[in-house]
Every structure is written in structure tokens, then in C-alpha cells.
């Protein structure tokens, strides 16, 4: 993997407008040498998967603080599956209760980062997973 930058799509599915976390993480990943694309607000799962394919990303990072993760995160996973995409790692972040995390992991979300996460832990996780 030397020489090739890790490509990450940071996406805001749903109607939630709180993007402080998404933007901070996007910048931290960029400062860590990754290529980061940020979708902006109000993306449908369809739009996110389409962008991920077009941009040929290694990682999708989904951010939701409204509680709609139980619906929208699995939808993204479903669409990836429909498109036979298996090599994109999907991670999530936001106000996500512990009991939902195990459900999200079951549908294939690699990791959920909750409030108080150190961005260096996210960087480390991505680097380990992609390489």
C-alpha cells in the first residue's frame, strides 16, 4: 500500500445537520495523509453508495446524531451488498447507544465511534483495516 493514499468518504446520511464531528474527523484524516471526500448534508443512502463507487474509496465514514442510524446505516450496507461491494470498510459515528452498536456490527459496520473518541484512534483503526 506504500505510496497509495487511503481514500475516505465522510458522509452525512439523513436530515441531521450537526456536522461538527464529521468535519473534524474529515480534517483529522486528511492531516493524517488520507484523501478525504466530504458529501455535505442530507445524503440518501443511494447517493452515498454512488459517490463511494465513483470515488473508489477504501472507507466510508457515516455520521448521524439524530437517532436515524438504526434505519440508515443498515440501508447503506444493503446497497453495498446489492452492488457486490465487499472491499469498502464502513465505520460510523454519532450519538449511538451501546445496544444499537451490536446490531450495526451484525449488518457489517466495522466500528462505531461514540462521543469523546480521539481522532487518533479512528486513524489507527482505518490504517490497520485498510492495510
Amino acid at each position, binding site marked *: 500500500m506504500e505510496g497509495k493514499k487511503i481514500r475516505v468518504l465522510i458522509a452525512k446520511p439523513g*436530515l441531521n445537520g450537526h456536522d461538527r464531528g464529521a468535519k*473534524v474527523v474529515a480534517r483529522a484524516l486528511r492531516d493524517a495523509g488520507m484523501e*478525504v471526500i466530504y458529501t455535505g448534508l442530507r445524503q440518501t443512502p443511494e447517493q452515498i453508495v454512488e459517490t463511494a463507487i465513483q470515488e473508489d474509496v477504501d472507507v466510508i465514514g457515516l455520521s448521524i446524531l439524530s437517532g436515524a442510524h438504526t434505519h440508515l446505516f443498515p440501508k447503506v450496507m444493503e446497497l453495498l451488498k446489492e452492488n457486490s461491494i465487499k472491499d469498502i470498510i464502513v465505520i460510523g459515528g454519532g450519538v449511538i447507544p451501546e445496544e444499537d452498536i451490536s446490531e450495526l456490527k451484525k449488518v457489517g459496520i466495522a466500528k462505531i465511534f461514540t462521543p469523546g473518541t480521539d481522532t487518533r484512534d479512528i486513524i489507527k483503526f482505518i490504517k490497520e483495516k485498510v492495510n
Partner: protein
Amino acid sequence: MFDKEEMKKIKQSKKEWENNVVQKTLKRFPERKDKFVTGSGKEVERLYTPVNLEESDHNKDLNFPGQYPYTRGVQPTMYRGRFWTMRQYAGFGTAEESNKRYKYLLDQGQNGLSVAFDLPTQIGYDSDNDMSLGEVGKVGVVIDSLKDMEMLFDGIPLDKVSTSMTINAPAPVLLAMYIAVAEKQGVAPDKLKGTIQNDVLKEYIARGTYIFPPAPSMRLITNIFEFCFKEMPLWNTISISGYHIREAGATAVQEVAFTLADGIAYVDAAIKIGLKVDDFAPRLSFFFNAHNDLLEEVAKFRAARRLWAKIMKERFGAENEKSLILRFHTQTAGCTLTAQQPDNNITRVTIQALAAVLGGTQSLHTNSRDEALALPAEDSVRIALRTQQVLAYESGVTETVDPLAGSYYVETLTNEIEKQALEYIEKIDKLGGVTQAIEKGFIQQEIQNSAYQYQKDIEESKRIVVGVNKFKIKEGLPKGLLKVNPEVGRRQVEELKKLKEGRDNHKVKENLKLLEKAAKTDTNLMPLILDCVKSYATLGEICDVLRSIFGEYKESVKL
């Protein structure tokens, strides 16, 4: 505030103190850090003295409470007359569930309501819209039509409570619904007390629930100013909000600057359509954040009040005293709440609420300890409300007006925040005003830089967050969190279907057509929206009509 001779003496003794006393101490006990900063990263001196206030003039800069420039408060007696309004922001699930929570809060001694709407409602989508999937009833109550609004305020006398509604892009629709519910209770619009947030500029900047582009949004906002001036003299037509700007990462100075810059844009827009400044300005209200740094926050509120008074007087030539005063609601800072050791949040909220009270707030929401994890459970909300009651009845800070005035530090901070906020406002003026500054991404970028710095400071342990990067413990899973009933969405869609079958659809169509026609002219749309609402046209139907004429806003994304 000190005469020249005295100032000279103070300066001399300060120098001596520094050279003799301080230096000696520093040799034996070095300070904890090389540089001390406020919560917003502003450098703090070791000691503040009259020297810092050399240029200050008591009557010009402070004066007395209830007098220009209102640094010391908007009323002469402040909390000696009446406490602030204790107003907890609440709403989730269906109108029926939220109605129950409101009645509980009123029973617990809260004296004003504050309605949280779910995201589809805030963005003008009905529950059956594809975009609403997974979001119905999640972050607030779902309102599709007047029918839901009737349920929401069932058994709550609207002539007795004041109601604040966090609604922006579709504010005219929700305001119309509120008027219609009141009418059914036999309460006339001119008796209604409350606030609609109605501040779309900060939605573009920080909060994200915009619908229309800036120009038609400003039109809807000024339509409300005009309508309320005639029909609802007690209603706050807008709550110009720094809260969300701060939550997005802004510093205290940026919060004041961008909020007042938004305020300037609204005043400009209203004057442009022919309203007189003293007709609408008395009903403008503000909404600020109370963050962790107690004294900096107190100074921030005082600075905002003084700067706004000057802007209204000098820039807009307002003459009515009520046009000059900055009345504000405060919410404690959600972004400071930690998911780790959540009970510690009670302490944070106490400090923040104290800042709001010492800063002279008119109303206050205190966050609940569990909000970094979920919507607050009932007992958490009760503790948050009790925190306000302890401050009001037990702390003693309410017994005199503006008790921190005259503190060399607080007055210096007040002066500095005012000065730096004004510099930002001048910069925004040069960019062509707030709308331009937003479209260029300037304001968003400034906030993002501050947010990133804040995070880096935490990760480098330059900023300590108790329980997060210091004093950590191993914790079990949090218990007793509130979970919104997942059935809400499905149930609401069924109700909506029933509503559409049961109403006079011919009438609805007719009213929507009239609205469409009027939207193409520059008629005030409030009366037409009121007609639509009364015929049980849905929020989504009304907003779709407006979307078809006004178009939709697209954010400019920059990292």
C-alpha cells in the same frame, strides 16, 4: 473610572508587586503552565487591576441596569423583580407523548414551554416522504398538520403559558398552526406570548435545517415581522441564535460576532421592505450558548448586550428603547456534555447555568446529564430543572443586579469580546454582508478552524475534559436511557392517510393554489398560510408549494 493620579499610583505599585513579590514566588513555585487561556483560547493575564480599565468610563460603558448601553442588564431590577423563565426544550415521538412531557414539566414548576420538532418537520417534509424515513419523531415531536398541533397543546391554556418553538425554515407554517390552535381555545393572536426561532441564516452556517435559498427565506422572515407587528404584539418574531454557532465549534467572540451579524442582516432586510426599525426591532430576541468558562461567558453576554445596543442606535438609528435591548434565551452547551461518567454533566450544567444567570439571561434551558447518550429521560430532566431552581432560590446570586460588574477581569473580558466581535462584523460588512460571507464559506470556515483546534487541544491534553482525557474510570453501560418508540413513524403515516381522506380536499387544493399564486408576488404570505393550515393542508404540502416557487438551498461544502 479612576483619576489620573490614582492610576499612576496603582501602576507603580503593580510594577513593584510584580518585580518583588511575584518574581520571588515564581522562583520557588513556578506556575502550572507557560500560558493561561480562556475556554475560547484567549490569553489570560495573571492578575487584572484598574490598569486594565484605564480607558473605561462608568456611565458610558456600564451605566445602570435598564439604561443604555444595557451592559448591566435589560431591566432595572432584574431577578429581584422576577426570575428568568425556566424553559426546558422538549419534544419527542408523537404529539400525544410530547403533550404528556409538557404537562409533567409544568407540574414540576417550569413556567414556559419550548417545543422541539423532529427533523422532517423542521425541513418541511411530511412523515410519509421518503426523506423522512428513520427520522420521524426522533429528535423532537412530529407535526404533519394542525391535527397534531391540536393534540400537542391539548389541555394547555395558551393564554397562560408562553411557548417557544424551535422552527426555522417552515416557521410561518408552525406559527400559523399555533394561532389556529389558540383560536380554537378562544385565545386571540394578540394575547399569545412566545417565540419562534425563525433564524434561517444560522441554519446555513451551523444547524442545517434550511429549505429555501436566502432571498425567499428572508422574505418569509420579514413577512412574519410584519404580520406580528399588526396581529401579535407580544410575540417574539425571531430568536437570532448564536447557540448552534457555538455548538458547531465557534469561540465566544465568534458566537457574538456571527449572531449579531445575522441580526444586522435581518434588520436590513426588514427595512428594505419598508418596515420601520422601531416597529419590528422591539420583538427581536436572541439565543446564546452558556459554555464552560464561567467568567468569559458572563462577559460574553454583557458584551453582546452592549454591542447590540450600539448597533441599533448608531447603525440603524433606532429610537425606541425596546429596539435597543438585547433580550436572550440561554441553553447550556450540549457540546460539553460527556458520554463518559455522565453524572459529571450535572456539575458542568450548573456552572454554565450560573454563567447565564450572572450574565442576565431572560430564559434558560439546562441540559440533562444523559444527552451525550440519548434524548433525556424524565428524571434527568427533573435534575436539570432543579439545577435552575437551586440557582434561583438558594445561590444568592439573584439578589442583586449584575453582581460581577466592576470585576477588573470580567470588565476587561467584556471590553475585549465586544472589540473583537466588532472587528469580525466589520470584516463581514466588507465581504458584502452575512449572506455573501456564508456563500463564500467564510463564516463556516472560521467555525471549523476553531472546532478543529478545540479537538486537537483535547487530544494533546492542552484542554482537560474530566472523565475523557483525565480521571478516567472503567464504566458499565448507562442505564435508564429514553428510547423513542420505533412505531412512531408507521403510526404517524397511518394517521396522515386518515387525515387526507377525512378533510375537505377541494378546499385544501384551493388554498394551496392561492398560496402558490401569492408566492409569485410580494404579498405577505402569512394570512394565506393560515388559511391553508386551517383547512388541514399538511406542512409538507405547504412547503412543497413554496419549494416549487422558491427553489431549494444548496450548501457550499468546504473542508
